[in-house]
């Protein structure tokens, strides 16, 4: 539990079956809070399922910037019994509900219809607040001339649960009501009003009955400022739009698809072609050829999709295409793995994918802001060095909303790299793969007079014709691979890594990607003065800032490396690149992202002389006995209680089966 709660932070969760509208409720609330000036970090855990399986959305609300979620929940709003006690209808239950996550004196708002299950909760140090949602819904429906139809309109429970939370928290209802209206768009006037009305009844009920009992309150809102509430898929999409991306290709895959869908929604306005292909092989090849065709191009996928792309990656590299930009939204692997859960398991794969030596740039964004600026930079690198650029993001970044300052586009400059100039082509013949001092050859654009060229996925000569010559082979290998070195020299260190803190502290945390938020927040909590901990975030994995990073690692008393995978992939990379092995390697491979608390306990454990390899799950350091013990505990829990029924998601009123 966050130590500065409840003064600066409030942690709220809404849980329920997928398809019941908890996403809308959480995002509506987040929007209202953001507009009120709060800093918000919103994190969702959901199943690979459309309707019925459990989903939980966590909002961390603060009066100072927040970049991660915390373990403790101050107020839990439950749409169903599973949120209270877990999926005890499964032979091997997947989770025990969320009651155990409630902070002492924290509260659970639940539906009177689930009171039987609330009694199963064994904790005595939390408050259980029961709400007669059906009665309140009936009141709202009666107003709209729909008395007696509460059963049919149960789908509106998500709005009521939000309303009840707002009431219990003492937050002003009106901005939330307004956000609910907005969430219905322009068309659903009457339905929107019914939802607002139902939410208001729930809010009033909670105000009357619970708001005085609450142990935790929202911190006072900080002064309002211009900020946006954004998630990674949108930030990457906006970065691509700003960069002038002309063709985005994709094949649907969780959790990457939302980015392409976002871009599809922007096609007309921004003159962008989004091409949905038959598979990821096609997606990357089309992106490579679009780049050859003279437009900036990209594709977005996840691990299983990227597993089909190494062929195209090599094709891009050997034909020296200016791109594409490949964004990988990592999820739990291997194979189909955990389609909607977090993992940082594709770092090694992204660096090595493909046969032979493939020049590439590999970068990793740590938060929504970096997703935007990194996506923009990626296209410049692709054009400047004519190679594929991989941007690693992950499920946590893709789906977590956070409040960030409005992106500053004024300093962003497009660099399209060396291009063929027909008016200045002395010898008259254009060689697409000409040997040049930098290794980068000017490129022409198909359709351009005088710029005709050949290129091939075979090894080739400067004209682009096949050759198996020894000297040409060596020269071409050096040309292509040398471009990575060139990028290493030209790209400034500030784009390759970020140092938080002085770097002269006894402990240096090392991490990458979305662990950034949890590490930054944990260090701020453990060490507000910055005396003990610094944090080194690796942002570019190839080219790697070897010298500068080695110097920082060697200067630190103790290095604690954080990896969201089993095999310590960042630690291994750092060792390969610098020869330095971090003294402690913290790993998490349970499919869930690091919370602030988890980073904090890992750091404290390392400082206290913990093991070299530290395994984290469920908010704590765990031993080898943990997974099986937890597994057995959950089966035991199921045996203890009478059998539950699986969840049922109500259909919209009037829906015809």
């Amino acid at each position, binding site marked *: 539990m966050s130590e500065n709660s409840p003064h600066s932070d409030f942690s709220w969760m809404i849980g329920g079956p997928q398809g019941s509208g908890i996403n809308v409720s959480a995002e509506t609330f987040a929007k209202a809070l*953001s*507009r009120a000036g709060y800093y918000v970090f919103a994190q969702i855990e959901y199943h690979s399922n459309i309707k019925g399986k459990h989903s939980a959305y966590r909002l961390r609300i603060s009066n100072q910037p927040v970049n991660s979620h915390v373990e403790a929940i101050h107020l839990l709003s439950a749409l169903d019994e599973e949120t209270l006690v877990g999926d005890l209808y499964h032979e091997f239950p997947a989770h025990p509900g969320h009651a155990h996550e409630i902070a002492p004196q924290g509260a659970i708002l639940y539906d009177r219809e689930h009171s039987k299950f609330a009694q199963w909760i064994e904790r005595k140090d939390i408050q259980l607040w029961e709400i007669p949602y059906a009665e309140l819904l009936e009141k709202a429906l009666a107003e709209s001339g729909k008395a007696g139809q509460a059963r049919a309109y149960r789908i509106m429970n998500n709005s009521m649960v939000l309303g009840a939370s707002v009431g219990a928290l003492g937050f002003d209802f009106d901005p939330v009501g307004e956000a609910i209206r907005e969430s219905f768009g322009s068309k659903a006037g009457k339905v929107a009003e019914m939802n607002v009305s139902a939410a208001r009844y729930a809010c009033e009920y909670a105000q009357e009955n619970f708001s005085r009992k609450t142990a935790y309150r929202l911190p006072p809102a900080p002064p309002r400022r*211009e*900020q*946006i*509430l954004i998630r990674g898929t*949108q930030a990457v999409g*906006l970065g691509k*739009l*700003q960069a*002038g*991306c*002309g*063709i985005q*290709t994709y094949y649907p895959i969780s959790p990457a698809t939302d980015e392409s869908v976002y871009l599809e929604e*922007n*096609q*007309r*306005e*921004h*003159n*962008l*072609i989004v*091409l949905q*292909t*038959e*598979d990821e*092989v*096609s*997606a990357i*090849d*089309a992106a*490579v*050829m*679009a780049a*050859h*065709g*003279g*437009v900036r*191009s990209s594709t977005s996928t996840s691990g299983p999709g990227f597993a089909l792309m190494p*062929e*195209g990656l090599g*094709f891009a590299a050997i*034909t020296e295409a200016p791109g594409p930009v490949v964004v990988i939204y990592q999820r739990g692997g291997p194979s189909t793995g955990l389609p909607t859960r977090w993992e940082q398991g594709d770092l090694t794969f992204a660096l090595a994918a493909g046969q032979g030596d493939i020049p590439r740039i590999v970068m990793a964004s740590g938060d929504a802001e970096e997703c935007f600026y990194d996506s923009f930079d990626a296209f410049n690198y692709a054009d400047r060095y004519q190679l594929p650029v991989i941007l690693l993001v992950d499920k946590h970044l893709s789906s977590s909303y956070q409040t960030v300052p*409005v992106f500053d*586009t004024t300093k962003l400059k*497009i660099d399209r790299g060396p291009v063929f100039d027909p008016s200045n082509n002395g010898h008259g013949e254009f060689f697409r793969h000409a040997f040049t001092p930098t290794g980068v050859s000017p490129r022409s654009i*198909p*359709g*351009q*007079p005088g710029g*005709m*060229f*050949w*290129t*091939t*996925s075979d090894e080739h000569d400067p004209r*682009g*014709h*096949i050759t198996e010559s020894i000297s040409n082979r060596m020269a071409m290998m050096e040309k292509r691979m040398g471009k990575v070195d060139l990028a290493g020299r030209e790209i400034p260190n500030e784009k390759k890594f970020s140092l938080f803190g002085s770097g002269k502290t006894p402990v240096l945390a090392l991490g990458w990607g979305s662990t950034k938020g949890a590490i930054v927040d944990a260090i701020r909590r453990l060490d507000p003065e910055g005396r003990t901990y610094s944090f080194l975030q690796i942002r570019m994995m190839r080219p790697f800032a070897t010298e500068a990073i080695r110097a920082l690692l060697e200067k630190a008393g103790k290095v604690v490396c954080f990896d969201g995978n089993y095999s310590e992939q960042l630690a291994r990379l750092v060792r390969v690149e610098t020869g330095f092995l971090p003294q402690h390697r913290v790993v998490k491979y349970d499919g869930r992202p690091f919370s602030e608390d988890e980073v904090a306990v890992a750091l404290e454990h390392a400082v206290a002389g913990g093991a070299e390899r530290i395994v984290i799950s469920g908010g704590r350091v765990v031993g080898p006995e943990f997974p099986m013990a937890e597994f057995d505990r959950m089966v035991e829990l199921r045996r203890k209680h009478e059998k539950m029924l699986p969840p049922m998601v109500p259909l919209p009123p009037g829906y015809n089966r």
Partner: protein
Amino acid sequence: MGTATELNPYTAQDYRADIHNDWCPGCGDFGILSAIQMALAKLQVAPHRAAVVSGIGCSGKTSHYMNTYAFHTLHGRVMPCVTALKLANHDLTVLGVGGDGDAYGIGAGHFVNGGRRNLDITYVVFNNDIYALTKGQASPTIAKGEKTKSMSEESIMESLNPIQLALACGYTFVARAYALDIKHLVEVVSQAIEHRGSSLIDVLQTCPTYNDLHSKSWYAGQVGGQPRLFKLDETGYDPIVHNPADLTEVTQKKAQALLKSQDSSGRIALGVYYKNEVPTYGDFLKEKITALADKPLVELDLYHRDITPNLRGLM
């Protein structure tokens, strides 16, 4: 088409790259290459306004012999490659070339969906029933029970009928030609390029090195006292869908093409099997992205976009 004039400045020679050709002597590919060059000259497509995209295998080398923008890509991936090149610049004449294994085997998924897309491209498939560059293994078009001298055993799989597959996929121009009948092939390739939509030409191609079954003399031979090869347009066959809105006519034209593609007599029909001019993928894109009606994507200024409204929407 031999001499250049002021009005017709390009001859077939202008599309020939000055490079040694390493196909086997007598290869059917020479005929297809010449026909493509002659068709481009016939249509007077400026070399720099044409792009030839090839797959992998003997046919893959075609792009190297073309004096156009030329991309020798990956095995099976011709369709994704031509698709993107055409989307980047819809004013280019984009031709895909590849083998039968490339198109109908490893690239089958792309072939299917490329047809559905009906982008204005032409795909010329060099069909010699075998994988020649790897020394003659069976390809998807070799018939069940057949065994070339390069195969150790006869094929025990059904062969794939490219015409029928193309019809099912949605290609709006479907033709078959013969590599050694260059005059006819030039005509078919020209029509395919001129056709607005996805065009498939399955070209029967001899491989003198590995395919001893379907040789020049076999194609020149007779079936039941009739020449094995015959031209559809000499039989009064009408491949054209005259009213694309009439779905009955569309189905009838596909059905007659399907029947002709596997003539029960064992004879092989050459020519255009099916042609239906309907709006292309590009036409639909222009409705969505109206700027494309004026200019191809590559010529649009995409580098000064204003994302402020997007950002406002997130506040």
